[in-house]
């Protein structure tokens, strides 16, 4: 990508999308690396091989019911917000919800679209929870159980619901004006998504940062 195009509005949108994708994938990798490091460290300290189920049992920290429920909602909302930004109107992808004109013009079309995406995300998260005990690091439902999260961080994670809802609202606005476009609103949506994603994966990066120190 030429450097000049990065700084125009469309370039910013594409760059932001790449950052979002990298941020999420990198968080997954860093999370796995974090767990692996702890596992190795425990083996060294105890001078014996520690099984992964035992490691997870020792590592797990209770984060509270309300926070956990909020974090689940935040993650589902994150996937819905991503779908609203990228699938509601054609932005990066050539197809969109607007191709289904009958549904798009339905009075409850946005609710139907968001609900379907939300339910799919919930089902995927739910079934990921059924992964084997030695693969618990891949369970999104237990992501925050492996990290110590401050009250402030919890509040921030809770606050992502607001950011993401605003992002969805702005995406819905883009849907209502389609085929007109508003790159400003698209960038605002993307910004809110980036901020929310950053907050949601912040404990992972924070742990990795602290471990490095």
């Amino acid at each position, binding site marked *: 990508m030429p450097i000049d195009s990065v700084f125009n509005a469309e370039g910013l949108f594409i760059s932001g999308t790449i950052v979002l994708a990298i941020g999420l994938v990198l968080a997954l990798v860093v999370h796995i690396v974090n767990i692996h490091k702890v596992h190795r460290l425990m083996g060294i300290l105890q001078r014996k091989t520690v099984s992964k*189920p035992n490691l*997870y*049992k020792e590592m*797990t*920290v*209770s*984060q*509270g*019911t*309300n*926070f*956990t*429920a*909020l*974090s*689940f*909602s*935040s993650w*589902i*909302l994150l996937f*819905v917000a991503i779908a609203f930004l990228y699938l509601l109107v054609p932005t990066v992808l050539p197809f969109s919800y*607007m191709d289904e*004109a*009958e549904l*798009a*013009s339905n*009075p*409850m*079309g*946005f*609710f139907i679209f*968001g*609900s379907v995406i*939300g*339910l799919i995300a*919930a089902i995927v*998260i*739910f079934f990921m*929870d059924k992964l084997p*005990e030695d693969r618990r690091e891949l369970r999104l*439902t*237990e992501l925050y*159980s492996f990290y110590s999260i401050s009250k402030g961080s919890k509040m921030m994670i809770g606050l992502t*619901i607001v950011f993401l*809802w605003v992002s*969805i*609202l702005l995406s*819905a*606005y883009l*849907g*209502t*004006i*389609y*085929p*007109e476009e508003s790159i400003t609103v698209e960038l605002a949506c993307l910004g809110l998504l980036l901020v929310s994603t950053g907050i949601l994966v912040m404990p992972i990066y924070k742990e990795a940062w602290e471990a490095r120190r």
Partner: protein
Amino acid sequence: MNRKLICILVIFAFLLSVQNVVGPATKSAGSSGGSGGGGGGGGSKQVTLESLLKSIQDGKKSKPAKFEELRTLLWKDPITSEEYKMPTVLMKYEGNNTTVSRNQPLEIITVATNNNPLEMRRMLDLYLEVKEPGSDKYERINSWPEKIQTNEYNEETNTTLRIWGMLPSFAYLKNVGVVKVRANISDGVNKWSTTDYKDIEPPFYSELVFNVTNSLPVMSNFNITPSGLVRYNDPIEYKADIADADGDMLNVTLHILDENGIELRNETLNIKPGPVSFKANEYGFFKEADAGKNFSCYYSYDDGIDFVSKDPVEPLKGPDIRKGPKLSVEKLEFSSSSENYYWWESYGFKVRAKNLNPEGYDVAFTLSTRAGNNEWNTVETKTVKIGPEPTEIYFNKTNPFKVTDAGQTFYYRVKYSEYDQTGKDSMEQTGTKINDKVVPYKIYDGIMILNLLPLLILITLIGLFMERTLKKGEEAHEHSSGKSREQGKAQKKSGKSIADSIANLLRRG
């Protein structure tokens, strides 16, 4: 036979003498060089065809008397006069009935019997001749003779035959009646006809005599559409079926009669057997002045031989032309509730019509629209009394378009139950491009709040439900140690209501 044998022996002797007397020195088959071949004197020389011919040519000049003698010896008389037997050639027909229709397939055969030995036989030329009804002379069917070669006779019976494929039936005849068929034969010397033979027994004949008949065409399934009262310029069609067993080209004439049974006009079609159709508009059978009149019709037809002058005998009734208005239609327009031309907006259409005659008639107007290349969609039908004063027909507040029409140019059409001044029964106009916008709501519309707020609530509830189902919050530690399962079982046993569970959930910090 003796003469033949003597002849061959003489030729053989002559060949031997010629070889010794006048033949040039010939090379032996084994010799390869010029000098090597001369050493075998006293042995027999091999005769080639070329050397024999050369010898004869030389002999013709040097010994003309001997040459004449040789020619006399070799000459074979082309006609073996007294022993040659005339071949017998007869017509053969294996059909049971000699009364045949024109299109009936026939198999006319000529059988030749030649009892001469092969070397005495001569090639026969056959000509088939037909005498048509009313004619006093035979016409030759084949311009080139059908040849029977000397070697094609059956070895046991000495017979051969010819099936005359060029005369498969008498469909070509223009008249029917008695048809005679014979064959003329020539062996190069003699000429004779099959009619020369007398007292022949079937299936052999000296001449075939057929009584050829014609099948009369038959008409059926008479119909005039549409039935009932029609307008003079409606697509009126006279239909029927005509059959002819001979498959002839037929002339079918439709006769149209007025109310007094007087023929107004007629039209003729030259067709093959099958459906018959006369379209009134194509021939301009009826004019505006015929409104209010009743007509009838009948057909006449022929196959070139037989003629049917009236079918059905009692003329068919119809069509009955009804009176109607002489419409003048103009100014077909549309309007939209806004200049945005969104698909969801209401559109209005109007057209102006009047009757050019003084009466008033009920006329049905049907509005249809289509977007792009889609099918016409009927929007509304209105029946309005149209008199001499111009009347505007309105189609107000219609919603003719669907979301899939967005972004396409629309067309609108009003169809009327009568014909207008141009002879058409509809008027069509091009509208404008429908706005591309798909979603008919604004972000601040109540419906959008109804969409997005429940969505937020639903997702929050899904999060709560998942947490309560998976118990990942407070019991994360216990989950792995198996306590959560025990607790879960205990909870199930306690039999708490759903309301209690929700209240509990909300109380938790």
